């Protein structure tokens, strides 16, 4: 019997075997078990069509979008340790993160740039899916969910834009939310709103901004939307999206 290395010893240990229920040896059976017995990897099917590996076909944009979402979740939670969503502290905390907290600046940079990258990745993913006709039967509904995820991505990015509470954020959000004033029927400056008697205090925009002006109440509302509400909604839609990719026949390819 040949001499066992330390890795073999670990692998044959009781504890290791309780974690990984199959051997590492490269056999067809283990290749399947590797995927199907692992809660994280079993997002995948155990076998995939060969062209799904070709980057020229997939651009890997869906996967990159998901990875960026994960990075954003992690860096976002880290930033939450220092950030307080109030009018008096928000900007101060940004400065604190940038100039005092160790690695605060790089966490903020990463969160910001990944958010931009995610918007681009989502657009490219949609572009690729359209160009390969991958919304065609049986994947119609998954395209619809994808469009909703695109909207979620933009809303996440937009609500996050206000949080630094600097000139850039407040004016970008002013321009953005003021469109809500003009919502037909429901915004106080929108067409036909006079017929319903909608005023600035109770209209579609005030629902988002918590009042007539962009102020501390808006900041708190955007913070909750950005950190809890929209990520949860997006995560639920993502679960359905990935599930449907598999149930609708895997990554698309020539029929």
């Amino acid at each position: 019997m040949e001499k066992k290395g330390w890795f073999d010893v670990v692998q044959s240990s009781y504890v290791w075997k309780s974690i990984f229920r199959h051997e590492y040896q490269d056999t067809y059976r283990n290749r399947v078990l590797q995927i199907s017995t692992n809660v994280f990897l079993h997002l995948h099917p155990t076998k995939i069509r060969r062209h799904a590996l070709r980057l020229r076909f997939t651009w890997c944009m869906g996967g990159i979008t998901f990875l960026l979402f994960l990075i954003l979740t992690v860096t976002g939670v880290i930033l939450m340790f220092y950030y307080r969503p109030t009018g008096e502290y928000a900007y101060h905390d940004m400065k604190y993160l940038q100039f005092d907290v160790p690695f605060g600046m790089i966490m903020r940079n990463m969160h910001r740039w990944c958010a931009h990258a995610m918007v681009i990745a989502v657009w490219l993913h949609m572009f690729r899916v359209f160009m390969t006709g991958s919304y065609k039967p049986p994947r119609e509904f998954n395209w619809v969910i994808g469009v909703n995820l695109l909207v979620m991505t933009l809303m996440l990015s937009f609500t996050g834009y206000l949080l630094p509470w600097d000139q850039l954020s407040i004016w970008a959000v002013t321009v953005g939310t003021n469109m809500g004033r003009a919502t037909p029927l429901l915004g106080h400056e929108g067409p036909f709103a006079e017929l319903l008697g909608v005023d600035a205090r109770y209209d579609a925009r005030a629902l988002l901004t918590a009042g007539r002006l962009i102020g501390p109440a808006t900041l708190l509302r955007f913070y909750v939307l950005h950190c809890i509400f929209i990520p949860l909604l997006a995560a639920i839609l993502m679960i359905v999206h990935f599930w449907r990719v598999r149930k609708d026949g895997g990554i698309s390819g020539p029929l």
Partner: protein
Amino acid sequence: MAQSTITADTEDSGDGTGDRSDGAKVKERARTAQRLAKAIPDKVHTWPYLVRLEMMVGTAVMAFVTVWSIVVDAPLEEPANPTKTPNPSKAPWYFLGLQEILVYFDPWFAGVVLPSLMIVGLMVIPYIDINPKGNGYYCFKDRWFAISTFLFGFLGLWISTVIIGTFIRGPGWYLFLPGEYWDVHKTQALTNVDWSTFFGVASDTTAGFLIGAASALGFLIGPPAVWWHIKAVRRKDAFFLQLGKLRYWITALLFMSMMGVVVKMVLRLAFNVKYIMLGPYNFNI
């Protein structure tokens, strides 16, 4: 390829007698194998082939964003001040396409109705595109209309207005060439006119409203109606009959709305037309 051939062989061996001397049977077996090879997709194991690829792409992305975050700092301007509007004030870059459209339309259309149309339009694509070709591979010839329309909307309108809004729009929301000095005091005489004034009618009169409404509705409905009449009613084109009236009209109205945005942009830039139609209750287009 190898695996599916094996599968084909095993499945075929059920009825096969193994008589390789019979030429016809060999040909038959080869044909069956070929047919099955086409029908059964060529599959590989996810582990290690896909997981390995994901690991490599993921590492590359992580490395890229880490370097990017080390090298470039995220912007942080002065504290928020509701009384001091920066010039120019820009929305986040991915919304600059909408901000550009806001120059040409009232906010209720550019900020609410048009984005909703875009989202709904994207969502209905799979249900109005009944062309079975081009499912799962790149091609242009088989679906030239779908691809051209999408490319026009995505690249021609969305991406290009984002680029214009980011780089070309300066103080006062005037257009500046790249590299041109952003003069805060730049002014241009831009006195607006309305569409009906070209017909000698003031836009805030009933006659002006009727001219505007007729032009807008005529543009939206006229060309598609004529096209439907020619293709489906007169020529009995099989594709149009299969498409059906409902799908045709959804497609046509979305398409004409997109084109209408372009027409309004041209009218504004070339003739300074502010409104096509001045309606009641701020219902202006």
